[in-house]
């Protein structure tokens, strides 16, 4: 059964929010994000001494009368950012659990909406196998956003995904011009290279890990043949036959906790924002709670 969180009420609640991006990003002209570079806005930022070639119209004559030196008045700059949303569309994200994929799509749509709402450009990168696709192009404006979102809900979640390869193969990754969001369950080891690559591109990064309650706290036990949703063949090495006992469940919890801590430490060292959500958490709670808490939203 198809699950969807996207409706008018959902988007109308997001209108009160905005993305809070780093000020050292460069972006493009015409946005709303204040950046550390100086621009032509009316908001005063600083003074500096006049240098040869500066526009003499920007000299502050009041200061000249006081110090008999030429100072230029500097103003802050506002930029338009490029928001890249990488959505993991592997089988593990929703082949057997439509709610997980719907949750991921809704999260991507919410961030996309916030972007276009703040006059940023947004692109949805569908990660599958070793490459990412951007079927909707760079979206500016709500009209094209909603058109894209309708199609985004139809995306199929199958196969495997190599996140690092997908990110590296993304064609429109320019340096320092916005936020990159990776939405995945990160059930692989290859995602770290993607982070390093994006950091190299000097982009602000947000990792959103989506997990189901079953993944957080598996309740099944006994002799179980676990079939990985990303596999096609039952004899695939990813599948495993195990006897799940109480102690094994404890071991699972420990492994999961260490796995999450590893992601968290990795991100923390690199200044990358990271949140992990369960699909039984209300999506508004995630947006207005966890994302606000990490400072990606204001």
């Amino acid at each position, binding site marked *: 059964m198809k699950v969807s969180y996207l409706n008018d009420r959902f988007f109308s609640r997001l209108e009160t929010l905005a993305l809070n991006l780093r000020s050292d990003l460069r972006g493009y002209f015409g946005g709303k994000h204040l950046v550390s570079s100086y621009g032509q806005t009316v908001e005063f930022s600083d003074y500096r001494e006049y240098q040869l070639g500066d526009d003499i119209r920007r000299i502050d004559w009041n200061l000249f009368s006081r110090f008999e030196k030429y100072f230029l008045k500097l103003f802050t700059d506002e930029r338009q950012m490029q928001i890249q949303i990488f959505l993991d569309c592997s089988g593990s994200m929703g082949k057997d659990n439509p709610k997980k994929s719907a949750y991921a799509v809704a999260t991507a749509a919410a961030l996309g909406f916030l972007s276009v709402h703040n006059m940023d450009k947004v692109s949805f990168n569908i990660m599958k196998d070793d490459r990412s696709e951007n079927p909707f192009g760079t979206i500016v404006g709500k009209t094209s956003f909603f058109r894209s979102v309708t199609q985004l809900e139809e995306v199929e979640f199958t196969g495997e995904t190599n996140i690092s390869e997908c990110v590296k193969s993304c064609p429109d990754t320019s340096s320092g011009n916005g936020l990159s969001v990776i939405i995945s369950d990160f059930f692989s080891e290859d995602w770290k290279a993607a982070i390093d690559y994006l950091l190299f591109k000097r982009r602000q990064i947000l990792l959103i890990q989506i997990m189901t309650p079953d*993944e957080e706290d598996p309740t099944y036990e006994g002799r179980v043949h676990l*079939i990985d949703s990303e596999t096609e063949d039952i004899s695939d090495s990813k599948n495993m036959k195990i006897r799940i006992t109480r102690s094994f469940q404890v071991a699972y919890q420990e492994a999961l906790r260490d796995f999450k801590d590893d992601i968290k430490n990795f991100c923390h060292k690199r200044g990358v924002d990271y949140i992990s959500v369960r699909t039984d958490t209300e999506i508004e709670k995630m947006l207005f709670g966890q994302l606000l808490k990490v400072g990606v939203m204001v």
Partner: protein
Amino acid sequence: MTLLYPIGLLGLLGIVALIIIYIIKPNYQQKAVSSTFIWKLALKYRKRKLPTSNLRNLLIIICQILILAILALVLTKPSGIIKAFVQDEELVAIIDASSSMRTLNSDEDSRFKRAVEKAKERADAVFEAEGVVTVIIADDDPYKIGDKIKKENKNTLYDALDKMVANDECSYSVADVDAALRMTEDILQENPSAKVVVFSDTEYAFVPESVEVVNIWDGSEWNAAILNATAELEDGYYTFTVDVACYGRDMDLPVKLMVYNKNSEDKVESGKQTVDNVEFNLVARCEGDARTRIVFRNADKEPLDYGKENIMRYDILEADKVHSYESINVALVAQDSYKEDNSFDIYGGKKETVNIIYNSSKPNPFFQGVLDNVSNRFSDRWDIHFREASENSALLEGYKPDIYVFEHRMPDALPRDGIVIVCDPETSPINSGFRVNSYFDLGRKSMPLVSSYPHPIMNNIIAERITVSRYDNITYLEPNYDVLASYSGRPVIMAKKIEAEQVVILGFNMHYSNMPVSPYFPLLMSNIINYYMPPTVYSNAFEVNEVIALNSRGFELTVSGNMGEKVFNEFPATLKAELPGTYTLQQTTYFGDTVTENIFVKVPASESNIWAEGDALYQPKIMNDKSVFYKDLLLYFAIGLVALLFAEWWLHMRESKI
């Protein structure tokens, strides 16, 4: 252990089914998960344990197999063998020990002796075959004289049987052969092939297949018998009825009836010389084993209606009339084979005298009337005489009262040599145990009394139907008195019976009560006499082994007879006379009088017919109840089953925890 229903072992197929299930069941349940990534990481975190898992799994399977095996065994009804069926040669000899077995043949050997000999012959054959013999003596309460006696102990058994014959231990009562056959059921249950042989003198119309009857008859035997003899008062004189019969021979039977100490009162009162004993002789014709009734009756009586009965009459002449006697002996003059019924004694011909004296300041006819009534009522037991204290003292001379009735005027002290009935006492005698102070007058109202609790004196009397309009104010009553009826919580009728203190108090004036005209008055007097003067026995003739109820008016009662002497101290008592003959009952009453009575115990009339025929012998029931031989082991299997189920559950729990 044995399996009563071995077909239940088919339940073991369940084990095969279990194994098949283990083989075909999917070992692993498929579960689709989004990713096995974390599970693979978790493998490194799993603690290393000892490889007990396989052992645990093996134990679980073993438990399950054992559970199924126990269930299958439960279906077979497992039982422990208590005792096994026996197929040995076995004889159960039932020897009839009824009184008729005392019949002698021409060689002067009793039937009992012959039965013993025949039983021994049959036993010898069994002993030769290395079998066992059980002998049951069937009298009215059968018992085993030997139980499963083997060859090596046969002399012990024979000695016991010979001793019975030598000591003449054959009973004088009837034989309960059916009860003896019931005793064989246990033996037949254990050994259905055991032979049951009844050595008896009774010809049975139906003999069960499993029983053999060996008849001990001898053609030379015959019996002349007195079946019964009674003496009845008829217009003040006795008529004697004697039933005789002759079994096995038709003959003219001489019958002699001897009356001892006839009419002894006449001799005392008139002083005339009278004949003490009188003898009546008659020859009775007895044919076809039929009973002949001989009636010894006064000659002036009208002829008897013979009807269809075989009745003969003997006319007693005027001079021989009998109105009292000490004892009567009826005897047959015959040399028959069975002697026990050739003589019969009748007692009860002399009634005990009861003197009643009525002492009243205002005599009324009520007591005289009621005592006349009671006198008639007890005429067969007591010779009741009534005197008033106001009569000529010459008449009272030598008159020793047994019952005193005091009305209104009381003596200084109540007598202690008889029963005292106090009515409407005006004063309190010093030893009376009560104090009276005037009376309560209810005016013109007659109020009913209230009964207190059941008491023999109040038998069949409804106290609520006795009314009084004036009753005595009893201010003190010693605890020995039982209050039989009261009004408004105050005692009105009281009684006590403490050895010689036997007092009844009627605490009201007869003129102020409906008692004199009530039917309860004679009933009350009868109850008083019955309570204080209970009959020692209710008859003078009993059969052997009949339970005889005994009572006494004194501390003890001595019974002497063929069985020796026996003293009874607690009453009512019972006596079981095992030997026929006359028994003498002697007691000293609480008032010091010595009372002697005789009873006659005879052999049962049915035993006189030495050619008796019985209807059907009891068929021993062999219960098809295997529980006699097997002990049910289901309980132990159930305990094992529960233990295994618990073990299996525990192993499962351990498996899921680890």
